[in-house]
């Protein structure tokens, strides 16, 4: 049986607000950013209008290294919507961002053998352009780990 490497999930339309648009704009520049409260330094994800710790609305958009840790993942192997067949298998994953105090991004692990993914392993951001021109972060296993497998 041919090994199936994880693909990109089906494209969706991205909704945004004044608080989330900077994240997607940075993604178009292939920069992974996270909002940090100017007043108290707390990171949050996804972006919201207030810092949940101190209620400040001032944000620093911090550019991150793009390195992440796999916090959890699933492998979607069944197409449940029309047109999804070509995207199977894909791997939704919760990615912890160590240089944003460990806040998590819901994303995907792409180009990976699902059997070799482990919680806690290091991944690096890659960029995927959707048909409408929006760009979304995905993650790939780091080279060192690929060698190990």
């Amino acid at each position, binding site marked *: 049986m041919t090994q199936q490497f994880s693909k990109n999930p089906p494209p969706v339309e991205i*909704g945004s607000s004044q608080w989330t648009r900077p994240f997607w704009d940075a993604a178009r520049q292939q920069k992974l950013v996270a909002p940090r409260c100017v007043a108290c330094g707390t990171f949050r994800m996804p972006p919201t209008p207030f810092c949940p710790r101190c209620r400040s609305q001032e944000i620093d958009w911090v550019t991150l290294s793009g390195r992440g840790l796999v916090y959890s993942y699933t492998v979607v192997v*069944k197409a449940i919507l029309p047109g999804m067949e070509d995207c199977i298998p894909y791997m939704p994953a919760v990615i912890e961002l160590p240089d944003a105090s460990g806040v998590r991004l819901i994303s995907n692990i792409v180009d990976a053998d699902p059997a070799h993914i482990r919680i806690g392993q290091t991944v690096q951001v890659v960029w995927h352009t959707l048909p409408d021109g929006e760009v979304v972060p995905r993650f790939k296993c780091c080279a060192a780990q690929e060698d190990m497998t």
Partner: protein
Amino acid sequence: MSRSHPIRNKTAIVGVGATPYYKRGRSEPQTLDELAEKAIIAAVEDAGLKMADIDGFASFGGGFDTPLLCEALGIPEIRYSAIVTGTGGGSAGSVGLAASAVISGMANTVVCVGGLQQNVQRYGTLMAAYPASPENAFFMTSGLFTPGHMFALLARRHMHLYGTTREQFGEVAISTRENAVRHPEALMRTPLTIDEYMASPLIADPHCLYDFCLESDGCVAVIVTSAERARDLQQLPVYVRAAAQGGASEWGRALYWMNMPDPVFASSGHETVARQLYEMADLKAKDIDVALLFDHFSSQVIMQLEDYGFCGRGEGGPFVQSGAIRWQGGSIPVNTHGGHLSSAYLWGMTHVREAVEQLRGAAVNQVAGANFALITGGPSSLPVSALILGRTI
């Protein structure tokens, strides 16, 4: 000396009614409203009340159109109409709403009704139907289109933290199926073996087909009135011992957020509601005789057993594997009606019905001497909810 609480034993469920349970789409040409009306008529009859006695509605998950129900059923006057916010998490909580309305004097006799008809929107593809929003961009872009995808992430984390296995998820599916096999109203009545479970292809790793609830149509209604009035009616009163809803912001939007800290991430989000519920009831897990746990996914049964203190955090896998949730020989029989996994998925309301039947002593898979039943409403975004019903005060 028992601590008192204003909700405890002041109200009771006096009537329960249900439509047949249908596989998804098989309830047509009836409409969802018609199914709700049939369940209400059956509940009123079961209670020995007249339709004119109904003066309130409590529901959840968007609820029903109250004036339409009144018009269809000939209910002359309504004094209360309320819905628990959120989705399936409010099923048990709707009974709490009804109890609070009766205790406060806003209404005398309140119907709680819930159910589903999935001919238009399959819940298994729910998120894909959402219009684009700033919030859902952060999970829809990853292809998380269904609760099944999302809860798989929690299950996988639970396996990582505690060593929980697929065989242990399988025991939940198999023990629930065993209960359904003996129940004439359950939709899935063929026994399931661990070999069949393990051989079933994964849908969203680590969940396979048997870890998912069914897709069903139907409605269930229960009637809540004062304990005093209940004692004059024809059924054995089933007392509302405690009812709680809400949850911690650490759980919050949960599946749509995925920033819950450990160990909350790999939980059912019910921990604070469980604590509140037991305090209200002045009971502990060991006092519960039968647990009707919202089983949209087998893994979430394991996490609720932990949140409700039937076992320690992280011990849910070995706990179920020991046979603890089996109807025969288990220390806490779970989902004796066959649950969402094998009886029917009506958004938690079959669990309320089963609790009433257990405490009346009239359940198909009767737990001998059952005095207290725990019922939970869906682990999902807040609020989640729970209920303890009692045969005795």
